[in-house]
Each structure stands twice: as structure tokens, then as C-alpha cells.
């Protein structure tokens, strides 16, 4: 794209700070940015409401004991919904954390690193959650 600096700052004179990308060009991943925070936020809103009602409002005693957790999580309707909740809520949360970190005014390079690290955290979070779900579903 014309007028845009590459990573080495090719459009800048030697020793000069690289040309900063326009804000709308900073996001290097799909699913990142304000619009997605609203979309994932809407999904989280539905799923967290379901999660709170199912786990803390309708259950006798307000919390599920082991057998109740297994019965809940092996329900064929609940399992995909809770899995989706895990994927979407962690994305929404880490995307929010990214926005907070970006508020410190980082360089484009630092922002990219933050984005990649948080993407890694998200992958680990989802894998951890899926593992836990798999254990609960297969060893009741």
C-alpha cells in the first residue's frame, strides 16, 4: 500500500522513528477491534446469563456438587453452549485487556507483541478448558 511504512521503517529517514500506521491499519488479526468486542460481548451476555441462572440460581444450595456438575456438563444442549462460552468469554476478556494495555500508548511493535502474546494466552486458555471438559465428560 502506498505511503505505508514497512517494519524496518523504509519510508523514514535513517535513525528516524518509523511512520506510525493509521489506527485502522494496526489490527493484524481478524476478530480484533471494537466491532468484535461488541459482537462477542453480545454473545457473552446471553451465555453468561444462562451460566449464572443454571449454576447459581436454579440449583438447590446455589452451587453444584460434583454429581450435579457432571449431570449438567454432559447434557447435550449444555455442553456445546458452555464450550462456546469458554471460547467467546476468554476472547472478549483478553481483547478488553488488550485495549487497556494499548491505552498506555505503546509503539506499533510493542502492540503487535501484546496482540500475539494475548492470542497465545487465549489458545492456552481454550485448550485448558477443553481438556477439563473432556475429563469431566469421559470420567464421570
Amino acid at each position, binding site marked *: 500500500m502506498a505511503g505505508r511504512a514497512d517494519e524496518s521503517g523504509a519510508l523514514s529517514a535513517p535513525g528516524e522513528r518509523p511512520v506510525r500506521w493509521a489506527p485502522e491499519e*494496526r489490527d493484524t488479526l481478524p476478530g480484533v477491534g471494537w466491532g468484535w468486542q461488541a459482537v462477542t460481548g453480545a454473545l457473552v451476555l446471553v451465555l453468561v446469563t444462562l451460566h449464572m441462572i443454571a449454576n447459581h440460581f436454579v440449583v438447590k444450595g446455589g452451587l453444584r456438587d460434583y454429581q450435579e456438575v457432571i449431570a449438567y456438563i454432559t447434557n447435550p444442549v449444555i455442553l456445546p453452549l458452555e464450550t462456546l462460552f469458554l471460547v467467546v468469554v476468554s476472547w472478549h476478556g483478553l481483547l478488553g485487556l488488550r485495549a487497556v494495555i494499548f491505552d498506555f500508548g505503546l509503539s506499533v511493535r510493542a502492540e503487535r507483541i501484546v496482540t500475539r502474546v494475548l492470542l497465545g494466552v487465549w489458545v492456552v486458555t481454550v485448550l485448558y478448558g477443553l481438556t477439563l471438559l473432556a475429563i469431566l465428560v469421559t470420567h464421570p
Partner: protein
Amino acid sequence: MSERAVTPARQAPPRGRRRGVLGWLDVRGRRLGGWAFILNRVTGLGVLFYLYLHLIVLSQLAAGPSSWNALLNWFLNPIFLVLDVVLLAGLLIHGLNGIRLTLVEFGLVVSRQKALLLAFGTVGVIVLLIGALRFLSDVGAK
């Protein structure tokens, strides 16, 4: 659409406002939307912290019924149940404010923002009261 475009703190920052998180504490020239922005960030960080705490605690399920049920008894003491009410408050503030922000951002109900805030505030307080009664009635329930 850039995420930066929606931060009220950036729309009209007073001269000399600090950048970054410390800028949130700056009360100069901040209007209702600015406070809502701060509140959303603070509750968002709090709820994210809880999310990871929650995911870590859930690993005890893999240790079997006795570990989980012992933990459960612990969580049914009044201190934890009060913290549950605090969590619900954080979720309500963040969720309702998120809806409000999204509506306004997409150009809906921009002219009725105070009415919207009042409506959402009322809903939030009612749900919080129901939640508090529900949670606090669980003390030592299992």
C-alpha cells in the same frame, strides 16, 4: 472502526491529561460517558481476573468428588457468598453498560442517554437485589 474511536477519554481529553491507566483517575472535564468508560474498564479487569480464578478453581473437578465437594462447603461460607454478590454487581455493571455503549455507538438512542442509564440502572439494581437474596440464603446450604 477503530477501538480508539470509542474511548471518551480520547474524544476530548483536557489539556495535560495523563496517558494510560493513570489518566482514568483524572476527573477534569469528565462527563457521564467518561465515568461509564472508566467503570467498564475497572469492572472488565475485575471480571477477567475472576474468570481466570474460576478456571483455576474448576481444575479441582478433575480431582474427583471429594475434592470438589470439600471446596464447595468452603465456598458456601458468608464471606464467599458476599464476594459472589460483588461479582454479580461487576457483571451487571459491565454487561448493562456494554449494551448501553453498543446502542449509543451504533447511533441508537443517542438523544435519550440519561433515560437509558436510568432504565439500565434500575434493571441492574433489581437483579442485584434478587441475586443477593438468592446467594445469601445459601449460607451452609450443602
